[in-house]
């Protein structure tokens, strides 16, 4: 490049440093969001897969009541099976010093004589349980941490009806319990649910399973379809109380983890795409206007004999100069935030290690889109200027033509003062440009609304699911169906005000070729505590026959009200029956199916039974009640609603909310970038006009009104428009986010719009203040002495 042009480039960039930075920030926020999101998702996925492989996470799982050990060899003979491990898995009520509520422990056996082949533990501290020491246990790390339990500590457990004192000998993590979710819970709650690994032979003895097992896990040869194996295992275990084998994809922890990652992936593509598009759009606009101001210099260069090509190259470098600042900033911030987020998630999931090796792809993609948009915008303006004969380009552009508008003819204008007329005609004269400025501001407001909508949605979900629908204070669950007499026993406990039974039956539901594993839940016809609740705000009564299913399940099965579905029960006598779908209801979480409890008992051909009881209690008796419950050996879970709400909120805060808060920050940057550039470029285009007004005796405030009033007016138009677009984007996003686990409701509170508008206004105000400082320094004489 020739030297003078190079110097011009460097000095122009320096002269415009404020704007260069504002543009670079807009660009950087688009790039950073994309890089951050993609690298986070990539790393999470890679880490999860590596974790599974390194620790031999099984691919097929099965639970039975009691099966003889020799079945292990039969399972190994199934074609495609590589390894089989049988275990004893049982829940137990734990008593931990300093914690009133009963804690549920899941006891999982590990071989004492050899190393486990599957589902190996990542031992963080201590050692594995030894043979002949039946009271040694290894604790799940998050559980140990939340109760400050360390190697050498002791805890009490009711194991098969007997109080035992267990000694912590190790602390570990397992790929099987990345998400450690207790029975009946929605979210991991490390205070109330923990996994304990104990010796296989010790647990066999404790649960009277000598020479038998109640849990099997399998790995498969590469390329084996797990479904076929699942079916063969099912057939093999059916006679031993098997409740249905399932593949890794349906394993609870993995399913949660994968759907989280999948959700993240959606979040990482949709929101950043919007960001990048908005940023690109702004760059296009800003660059075009920035170059248009250079018109006479382009004429001058041409007069000196520079070719159009040279000039285009010069401005390409100019744009790249700005662009590279933006890209570098975006990459750096994106990388750093990606690492930060991945660490955060790794901590949340308790991964024993972290693979953060982001691929170059996302970095390149983000940079290319932004630079491309900037270049196209800039070169359009360069071409326009270069197309003019040099003499004409060096002349100031002819005074723009203004014409009376319809409004003017109607006499509307007559009532306005002159500065207001200037302001309005400026907008009217360049409607496209004004539209783009307004659209830019609107888009940043829209992104704000879309990002903040999540807060509203999640609060609404909590309100509807936990507060409107559920009236119980706590729920007690049992490992196996119990006679309904237990309901009366519980009602007699201290502080219990009312009780309500529930029966959950493991089943497969089918319609045509659609099949889903979904428990059928039996409840009283009219529920007072745990209610079948439609998200639109209506409690449903259960009919004497037939099922009431969630719209999600109806969709998954492809059925509607009036259709019949087949229910294949996976426990007890394993009946298979057909029932009509009587009603459907909308729910945000899960895809449940309900039946009247008596009808369910009849179809099961069993005496009235329950698997859970919902209780309303007098809080004064809470501690006494908990003490009683801890001594009730058959209980496998106690869920306190208040705690569940808290856990749900905490989990959300740790995952999605952190992500969303960054989107909010970036949206603010966008809003600021648009308004600052719009006002700043207006100033450079209209410095002369404003200086003239100052000479005529207009005060700084008065001319700021003309300049900033234009931006303010456009902002006012943009704000409602932004809210509208935000609504559209949010409903798009909500639809894209629908998973089997939960659906984010489309709820945007007025305060959210209010905040988005306030932030939009604040961004406008800050940039107006910055530009106002420049207005104050306007050099009156220099402007007037030079020709345009």
């Amino acid at each position, binding site marked *: 490049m020739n030297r003078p042009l190079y110097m011009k480039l460097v000095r122009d960039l320096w002269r415009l440093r404020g704007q260069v930075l504002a543009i670079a920030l807009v660009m950087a926020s688009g790039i950073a969001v994309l890089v951050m999101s993609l690298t986070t998702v990539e790393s999470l996925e890679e880490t999860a897969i590596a974790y599974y492989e390194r620790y031999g996470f099984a691919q097929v799982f099965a639970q039975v009541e009691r099966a003889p050990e020799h079945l292990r060899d039969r399972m190994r003979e199934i074609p495609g099976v590589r390894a089989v491990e049988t275990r004893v898995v049982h829940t137990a009520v734990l008593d931990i010093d300093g914690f009133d509520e009963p804690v549920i422990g899941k006891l999982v056996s590990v071989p004492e004589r050899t190393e486990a082949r599957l589902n190996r533990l990542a031992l963080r501290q201590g050692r594995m349980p030894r043979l002949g020491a039946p009271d040694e246990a290894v604790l799940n790390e998050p559980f140990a941490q939340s109760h400050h339990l360390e190697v050498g500590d002791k805890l009490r457990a009711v194991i098969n009806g007997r109080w035992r004192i267990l000694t912590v000998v190790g602390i570990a993590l397992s790929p099987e319990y990345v998400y450690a979710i207790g029975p009946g819970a929605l979210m991991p709650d490390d205070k109330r649910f923990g996994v304990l690994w104990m010796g296989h032979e010790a647990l066999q003895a404790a649960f009277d399973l000598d020479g038998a097992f109640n849990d099997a896990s399998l790995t498969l040869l590469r390329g084996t379809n797990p479904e076929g194996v699942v079916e063969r295992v099912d057939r093999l275990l059916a006679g031993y109380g098997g409740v249905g084998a399932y593949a890794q994809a349906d394993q609870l922890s993995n399913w949660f983890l994968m759907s989280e990652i999948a959700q993240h992936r959606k979040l990482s593509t949709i929101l950043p795409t919007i960001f990048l598009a908005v940023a690109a759009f702004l760059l296009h606009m800003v660059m075009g206007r920035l170059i248009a101001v250079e018109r006479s210099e382009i004429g001058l260069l041409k007069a000196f004999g520079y070719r159009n090509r040279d000039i285009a190259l010069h401005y390409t470098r100019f744009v790249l100069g700005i662009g590279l600042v933006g890209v570098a900033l975006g990459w750096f911030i994106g990388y750093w935030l990606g690492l930060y987020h991945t660490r955060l998630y790794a901590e949340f999931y308790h991964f024993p290690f972290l693979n953060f090796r982001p691929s170059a792809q996302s970095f390149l993609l983000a940079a290319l889109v932004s630079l491309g948009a900037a270049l196209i915008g800039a070169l359009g303006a360069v071409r326009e200027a270069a197309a003019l004969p040099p003499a004409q380009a060096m002349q100031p552009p*002819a005074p*723009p033509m203004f014409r009376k508008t319809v409004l003017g003819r109607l006499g509307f204008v007559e009532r306005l003062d*002159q500065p207001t007329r*200037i302001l309005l*005609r400026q907008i009217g004269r360049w409607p496209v440009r004004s539209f783009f400025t307004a659209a830019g501001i609107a888009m940043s407001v829209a992104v704000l609304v879309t990002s903040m909508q999540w807060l509203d949605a999640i609060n609404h979900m909590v309100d509807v699911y936990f507060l409107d629908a559920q009236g119980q204070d706590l729920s007690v669950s049992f490992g196996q169906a119990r006679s309904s007499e237990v309901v009366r026993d519980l009602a007699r406990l201290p502080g219990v005000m009312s009780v309500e039974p529930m029966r959950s039956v493991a089943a497969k539901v089918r319609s045509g070729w659609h099949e889903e594993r979904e428990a059928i839940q039996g409840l009283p016809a009219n529920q007072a505590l745990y209610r079948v609740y439609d998200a639109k705000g209506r409690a449903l009564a259960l009919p004497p026959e037939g099922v009431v299913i969630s719209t999600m399940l109806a969709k998954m099965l492809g059925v509607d009200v009036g259709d019949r579905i087949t229910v294949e029960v996976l426990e007890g006598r394993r009946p298979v029956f057909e029932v009509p779908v009587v009603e459907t209801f909308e729910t945000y979480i899960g895809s449940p199916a309900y039946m009247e409890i008596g009808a369910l008992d009849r179809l099961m051909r069993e005496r009235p039974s329950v698997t859970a009881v919902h209780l309303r209690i007098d809080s004064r008796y809470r501690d006494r009640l908990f003490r009683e419950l801890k001594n009730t050996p058959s209980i496998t879970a106690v869920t306190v609603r208040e705690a569940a709400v808290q856990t749900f909120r905490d989990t959300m805060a740790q995952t999605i909310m952190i992500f969303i808060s960054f989107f909010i920050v970036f949206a603010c940057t966008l809003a600021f970038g648009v308004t600052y550039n719009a006002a700043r470029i207006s100033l450079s285009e209209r410095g002369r006009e404003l200086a003239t007004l100052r*000479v005529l*005796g207009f005060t*700084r405030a008065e001319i700021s009104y003309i300049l900033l009033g234009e931006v303010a007016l456009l902002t006012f138009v943009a704000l409602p428009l932004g809210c509208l677009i935000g609504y559209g984007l949010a409903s798009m996003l909500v639809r894209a986010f629908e998973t089997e686990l939960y659906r984010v409701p489309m709820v945007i509170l007025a305060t959210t719009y209010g905040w988005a508008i306030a932030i939009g206004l604040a961004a406008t105000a800050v940039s107006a203040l910055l530009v106002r400082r420049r207005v104050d320094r306007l050099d*009156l004489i220099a402007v007037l002495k030079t*020709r345009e």
Partner: protein
Amino acid sequence: MGERTPTLRARGLTKVYRTGEVEVHALRGLDLVLETGELVVLLGPSGSGKSTLLNILGGLDTATGGEAWFLDHELSKLDDAGLTRYRREHVGFVFQFYNLIPSLTAVENVALVTEIARNPMAPDEALRLVGLGERLHHFPAQLSGGEQQRVAIARAIAKRPDILLCDEPTGALDSQTGILVLEAIERIHEELGTSTVLITHNAVIADMADRVLVMGDGRVHEERRNATRRPARELTW
């Protein structure tokens, strides 16, 4: 005339511009008196300090040293807000490049000033004074250069200023159009009695003045009084 307070006075006025390491002495101890109702033409080569003087007298710039007075207000003591008020209430400017607001019509460009003035004339009256009564509702892009300059003059005088300051008002115009513009200035001066300072390169224009000051090197080199003023329409160049 001598007994009254002069409209503008300056004593020992200096102005130094610092651009980087270079100091430019634009004014070097200039003294000046502008009597009320006087028409003064400032002549001088480029760089002689004419425009600097005009800018200081008009409240667009401040002096480095010395004093400048408008009636009994010392301009050098006013802050930015004070200077803005001074320009708004007392001074009318006409520039070489008309500096009209392109988005406002002729009458609106004038109204721009009358709306913020204390005792203005009606905008169309001002335009009629400069002979543009027929083109009130044209936008600048629809007017010739001379017409645009006359709109600028109408805009400058519509507030009935005490002082009219014109910096090369004919600089960008051909002679015929230039004379039309000078006629407008002359007419304003006569009908309103506005004290007027007019900067020009063109020595011919000096003939229409009461008094001519020739500047050079930041000072007044020469001062002469015309016995009779020649009407603008008789000037040729």
